[in-house]
């Protein structure tokens, strides 16, 4: 049954209270799902400096949503900073929250316009058929989908990113659409839209002394100094990337997970020691695929970096707006920015990055 959004008691006249009531309804749906599945599976992960707990009603979604976080696993024994309750309808007697969105509007990236609440965040991914909710005050997130079996592989590669983005930004950490690699001197952020060469650059560094933080999504902090934090152990390879990096071909061929034409790899299987939890950022690189043979760096403006970083990030993350833009503006203004013209010789990429790290440390 669908409850109209404004069919409210007097005390629920403002949107915030309505949103809280809806969140509580959804929490009850989770509890019912847990009873229907007769099973609860709990996992804890350390993301940046925070303990994030995932609690699953039943076992349908856990394999799909924990794989990319596996390298951050903690033994569940501490009180989590954030708990996310996860379930699907198909395996839990369709215990899904009734949505009060009829007649309201949902943005392409998932924003639910009817929610004006500062306490409750809500987003719906209509392609993935998922609902994400966060009670900022209670540090509790809810994630549900109609059928775990229909969940797109992009959720396996980068699970729960909407809830993580909402919760972590309150703590000065912003999930961004960017890669990051580096060494003990620091790291570089790799910014740009899909297809710009972020993954190719990040994966080309695995055969060097540079460590991997991400190829697609990572956390960044602008204050007190620029820093990048790892979240996922997944990487995505396009056919073009595979041509340039044939050493990944056999691993890619055995992967059954895809995002569009990209194959998903889990780097903790073979490169666990190369995954860095965080890096102090020294520069921002904007990869570009070119016809050159050897890569080179060309100075770029901080606004070119801001455009590359902010727009592709904000197009994907519900409720991303001025606050995220300003944080990323602070980040980009603190760092030298370069266009990284990629060449066909991938073995030269790590050297270019190592040199810029030495140069920025010396300065």
């Amino acid at each position, binding site marked *: *049954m669908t409850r109209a959004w404004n069919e409210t008691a007097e005390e629920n006249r403002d949107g915030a209270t309505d949103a809280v009531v809806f969140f509580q309804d959804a929490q009850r749906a989770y509890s019912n799902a847990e009873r229907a599945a007769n099973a609860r599976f709990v996992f804890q992960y350390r993301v940046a400096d925070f303990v994030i707990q995932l609690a699953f009603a039943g076992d349908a979604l856990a394999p799909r949503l924990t794989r990319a976080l596996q390298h951050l696993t903690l033994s569940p024994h501490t009180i989590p900073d954030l708990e996310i309750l996860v379930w699907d309808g198909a395996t839990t007697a369709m215990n899904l929250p009734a*949505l009060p969105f009829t007649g309201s*509007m949902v943005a392409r990236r998932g924003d639910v316009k009817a929610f004006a609440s500062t306490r409750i965040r809500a987003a719906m991914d*209509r*392609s993935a058929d998922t609902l994400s909710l966060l009670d900022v005050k209670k540090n509790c997130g809810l994630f549900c989908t109609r059928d775990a079996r229909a969940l797109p592989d992009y959720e396996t590669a980068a699970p729960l990113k909407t809830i993580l983005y909402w919760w972590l930004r309150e703590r000065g950490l912003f999930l961004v659409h960017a890669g990051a690699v580096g060494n003990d001197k620091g790291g570089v952020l790799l910014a740009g839209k899909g297809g710009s060469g972020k993954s190719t650059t990040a994966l080309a560094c695995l055969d060097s002394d540079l460590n991997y933080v991400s190829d697609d999504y990572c956390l960044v902090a602008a204050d007190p100094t620029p820093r990048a934090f790892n979240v996922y152990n997944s990487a995505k390879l396009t056919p073009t990337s595979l041509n340039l990096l044939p050493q990944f071909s056999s691993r890619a061929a055995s992967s059954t997970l895809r*995002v569009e034409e990209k194959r998903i790899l889990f780097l903790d299987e073979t490169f666990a020691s190369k995954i860095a939890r965080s890096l102090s950022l020294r520069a921002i690189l904007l990869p570009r695929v070119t016809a050159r043979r050897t890569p080179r760096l060309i100075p770029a*403006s*901080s606004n070119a970096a801001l455009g590359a970083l902010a727009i592709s990030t904000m197009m994907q993350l519900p409720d991303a*707006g001025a606050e995220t833009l300003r944080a990323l503006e602070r980040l980009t203004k603190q760092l030298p920015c370069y266009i990284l013209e990629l060449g066909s010789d991938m073995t030269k990429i790590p050297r270019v990055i190592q040199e810029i790290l030495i140069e920025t440390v010396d300065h």
Partner: protein
Amino acid sequence: MSDISFPPHFRVNHPHIIHEIIEGEAILINLETGSYYSTDQVGAVVWDWLEKGASVAHILKHITNTYAGDTREMETSLRALLRQFQDERLIIADDSAAKNDAAFQSRSSSEKIPFVAPVLRKYTEMEDLLLLDPIHDVDATGWPQRAAGSNSP
């Protein structure tokens, strides 16, 4: 572009504007005002060439080479779009730059795309830029019918 009052060259109003072309749509943000803009198809092509430094005359040549339609309408539409860009301070006239249009290759296409006059849309919030149609088709629980989605975020 024979109107002598119309500037022959423009440039993106850096550092106040950030921009990106995503899936054929130019997304523009004015950092001074906080306004968001989008323009797709022809508008995104115009923005891309402006950003790369092409002159107005060369952009028009590229449009007439690429799209099928009335040349006069294309010129009028381009002029109107540039005026909008200017009014919103997204671009400014650039009298100083020495333009080298030879760097921009535009050949007449044998299979031209029908011309659709470009539109610049303005929003004050990012989510307004990304609004979908209202959800009407819902199941018994109020969940919308699943969108015909792709396996991409």
